[in-house]
């Protein structure tokens, strides 16, 4: 199967605990979700806006400003079979990385092979090239594909795509539901969802208390919640001013709190062993874990991850396996909701 072995199963996710719709559809605010706060003192149950009680003047909150593209398109293969295709990212040479899905959205379809031709809306054709990121992998979930004619991925998807919606979600939330309030750089296939519960009002309250909000960019590929793979290489950018803001906060004793695992990955990709951050851009294949702990990130706001998800290893890298296990025990017992429209956690080791 896939190259890496799944990580150990750390908890059992009880049935009925996937958030099936955004809180807005229940007549509530974006921020009207629960927040579990895990620190060395205790694990306590809070409401998301209480996040501000845990941040103080001088801290930096680092957010991912990637815009989520509507990255699902209807594809048709040579035999006329129709199925959803998820466009994960565009490579530097213009090829796209894609994942074919089963027509009922129940999981990935592994039937792509080199040379497969796919017809997409708007007269675009893809020719499947090789497995991504490991060209030797068979079977593979992700493939690179040559696009003709050459089109700009973001503009194409904005016209012909729809948001990627997994089968646990009821209905079709509009694209705006998949954007964070600070999103400005188009490029993600899936939402960097840790930032979703933040409202403009909460951001203003944080900023007015002397907390600096610093953007970085990392475009999320498709994760396929059914599988438990290590994260694929993703394009990122940490600007000079973002790096300077993080470094100066640390120098003054402030904490670096990441909103989302994507932010941790980007920051740690440009961090020296002493925790100093440098500007940088490109593709990151950094994989964080308890064996490669975070150097610069002190705390993490993140959604709830699947029992075998490789994301849990990244949480270990920030908070240590013991605290992560304690937090997930409380999440399971506390009736929390998983996934992008669900509840949230703050890990402050």
């Amino acid at each position, binding site marked *: 199967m896939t190259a890496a072995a799944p990580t150990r199963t750390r908890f059992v996710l009880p049935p009925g605990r996937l958030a099936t719709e955004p809180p807005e559809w229940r007549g509530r605010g974006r921020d009207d979700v629960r927040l579990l*706060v895990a*620190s*060395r*003192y*205790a694990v*306590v*149950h*809070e409401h998301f806006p*209480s996040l501000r*009680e*845990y941040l*103080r003047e001088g801290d930096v909150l680092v957010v991912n400003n990637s815009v989520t593209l509507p990255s699902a398109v209807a594809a048709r293969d040579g035999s006329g079979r129709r199925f959803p295709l998820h466009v994960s990212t565009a490579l530097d040479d213009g090829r796209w990385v894609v994942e074919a899905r089963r027509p009922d959205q129940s999981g990935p379809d592994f039937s792509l092979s080199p040379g497969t031709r796919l017809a997409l809306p708007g007269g675009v054709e893809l020719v499947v090239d090789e497995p991504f990121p490991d060209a030797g992998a068979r079977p593979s979930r992700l493939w690179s594909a040559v696009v003709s004619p050459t089109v700009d991925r973001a503009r194409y998807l904005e016209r012909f795509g729809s948001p990627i919606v997994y089968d646990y979600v009821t209905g079709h939330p509009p694209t705006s539901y998949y954007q964070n309030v600070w999103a400005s750089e188009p490029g993600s296939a899936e939402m960097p969802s840790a930032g979703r519960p933040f409202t403009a009002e909460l951001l203003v309250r944080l900023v007015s208390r002397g907390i600096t909000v610093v953007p970085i960019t990392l475009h999320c590929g498709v994760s396929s919640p059914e599988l438990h793979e290590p994260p694929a290489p993703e394009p990122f950018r940490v600007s000079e001013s973002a790096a300077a803001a993080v470094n100066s906060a640390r120098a003054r*004793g402030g*904490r670096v709190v990441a909103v989302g695992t994507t932010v941790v990955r980007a920051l740690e990709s440009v961090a020296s062993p002493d925790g100093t951050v440098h500007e940088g851009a490109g593709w990151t294949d950094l994989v964080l874990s308890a064996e490669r702990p975070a150097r610069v990130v002190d705390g993490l706001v993140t959604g709830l991850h699947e029992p075998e998800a490789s994301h849990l290893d990244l949480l270990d890298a920030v908070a240590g396996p013991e605290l992560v296990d304690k937090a997930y025990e409380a999440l399971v017992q506390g009736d929390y909701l998983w996934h992008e429209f669900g509840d949230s956690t703050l890990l*402050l080791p």
Partner: protein
Amino acid sequence: MTPHAQAPVRPVALVTGASRGLGRALARELAAQGWALVLDARDPVRLHRVAVELGALTDVSALAGDVADPAHREALGRAVDAHRRLDALVNNASVLGPSPLVPLRELDLTELQRTWTVNALAPLALVQRVLPALERTGGAVVDVSSDAAVEAYAGWGCYGSAKAALDALTAVLAVEQPELTVYAFDPGDMATDLHQQAFPGEDVYDRPAPESVVPALLELVCGRLPSGRYRAADLAPVEAEAVTA
């Protein structure tokens, strides 16, 4: 550098009722001054927020529980034992009793018993538990009192009688333990949740903020004055004026 130089010893304070109001304001100031803290409060979420905030500044033990509960007091005692010393015990946790206030003829005796337990018995019980650690440093005991302990205000019989008992215990303790400094401290009216409970529906936030009383309280926590009963207004007239001006 001497090879056996020891790390500077932090003074240690146990503050009850530290998740809000005067207790939180005092804990913040002590943390800023480098004191190690053992903190207590009933509400685990609010106590957690304070612990995370102050944990960046100093060594904090935060134990959620009710000072009326002997097992919880024992846990606080063990947290103090871990430091091997105690420089100040601040008995700040209090309950008001019934809210809104009721005259004595209507007072539920269970409420009275509970108020006496939290406001008078528990402070003495904590003193008994941590006395060896206090004696090691010649530390301070500060029992937070009230003008209701000495003045007869209608409706304040439940709370006032408990604080009067606390005052009496404090005064006797001062005589019996001359190696310590032992204080009753009357902070005066403050904009706190307890004060709000006494006057439900009324805006109590015209009263001084608890932070304004902290400088006066610190005089006692640091044991700089002789044992006795002190009012905040008499200790720090400058600060008190600045707040009301």
